[in-house]
């Protein structure tokens, strides 16, 4: 009895796409991963438009390089690796642009810094508002070093295991754990005013 494509696992779907070039299998995988990837990339780069572009690029890369996926790896770790690399490229591009730009107004990190650390900026009742809190956490997350930020997002937001994070980033499990720990410590320092109470 043949299964429906929607009932297949990620690995079975990509096998189907690799072997028979079934576009429907590809579309199902896109449907499954577009939201988690968008969430991951948005938390990493902090920009909605960029994250949409990066996820689009990820899916195009997946379409073009489907044969580079090997069946012994999990599909989710493979696609997250592609997305992570593209997101890192985007951050590097921004950094270069910031260095060579003569316009200092592009850099709005200082204003973000005020928003995060100056508790008096927000009224206590407004601080309790979940939207503002999530906005503050997101801004704090963007101030964490990218190498730590990536693993913290993968662990605490995307809820991957340490082994899966090690597969995605190409690091050892020990390095992953230490980076997550450092990232959380940085985040805690940035959000100390929120957690005081």
């Amino acid at each position: 009895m043949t299964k429906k494509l929607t009932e297949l696992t990620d690995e079975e779907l990509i096998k189907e796409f690799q072997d028979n070039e079934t576009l429907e299998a590809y579309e199902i995988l896109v449907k499954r991963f577009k939201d988690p990837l968008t969430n991951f990339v948005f938390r990493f780069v902090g920009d909605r438009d960029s994250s949409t572009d990066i996820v689009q690029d990820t899916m195009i890369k997946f379409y073009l390089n489907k044969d580079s996926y090997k069946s012994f790896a999990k599909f989710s770790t493979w696609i997250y690796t592609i997305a992570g690399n593209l997101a890192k490229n985007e951050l590097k591009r921004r950094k270069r642009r910031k260095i060579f730009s003569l316009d200092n107004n592009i850099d709005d990190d200082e204003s973000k810094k005020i928003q995060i650390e100056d508790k008096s900026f927000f009224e206590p009742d407004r601080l309790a508002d979940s939207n503002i809190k999530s906005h503050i956490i997101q801004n704090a997350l963007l101030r964490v070093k990218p190498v730590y930020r990536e693993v913290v997002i993968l662990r605490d937001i995307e809820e991957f295991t340490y082994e899966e994070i090690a597969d995605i980033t190409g690091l050892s499990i020990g390095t992953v754990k230490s980076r997550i720990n450092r990232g959380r410590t940085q985040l805690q320092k940035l959000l100390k005013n929120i957690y005081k109470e």
Partner: protein
Amino acid sequence: MGINSYHSNEEQKFAHIISDLKNLPKVKAEDNFEFNLMVKIRNRNFELSVPERKFIFNRALAPAAAVTFSIMIFFFFFTESNVNLENPFLIPPEIRANYSAAKTDTIVLSQPEMITSYSAEKVLTQADDTEVPPSNIVRVVVEPSDAVTVETVDLPFDDNSAVDLDSYVTGNRVQQNRVQRGQLVGGGSQPTNFDGFFIKERASKESIELHKTKLDSLKKAQKTEKE
């Protein structure tokens, strides 16, 4: 992608951060995400919006590269004047001092200190007109008494006076039979012809028996003479 069951003390320490991160609102893709993607794929528009870096130059190496480049420029432009680029064909050759000597003549120089700057032939003509053939090899020695010792050499090695080892070996005997002639080294400038290899023939049984019988008869004859 399931929730990891691993909970260490570290995770408990950051429990509030972890819970806040988990409770962050999930950002979803745009509604037309798939449509846009499929349009790109069908139109074969695979140009990435985020261009990939093709040339990666580590910015940390920039100071080192700058220093290396400036050192190269310094050596190339500022140390060029110190280089003495003389044409080697215009430099007079130096006097060669050591040769083997057979004959020795002594001449006195009027200006012996100039010997180092003159060639050997010039020094000889400057002295008391001793006739030395220019083709001979000379040895010029500067002595403390400002005298120059000229040693003419007659070397035995020449095309016309080459040593023929055959003449030494054979004692100047002329062998008419070319087979018997064992020439080791040819003399003069004439090359020797290769005569080929010769296979030693084994003696036949008949001849051996003949020699044996001759020997036996000789031995018998000697015995009878003694008796």
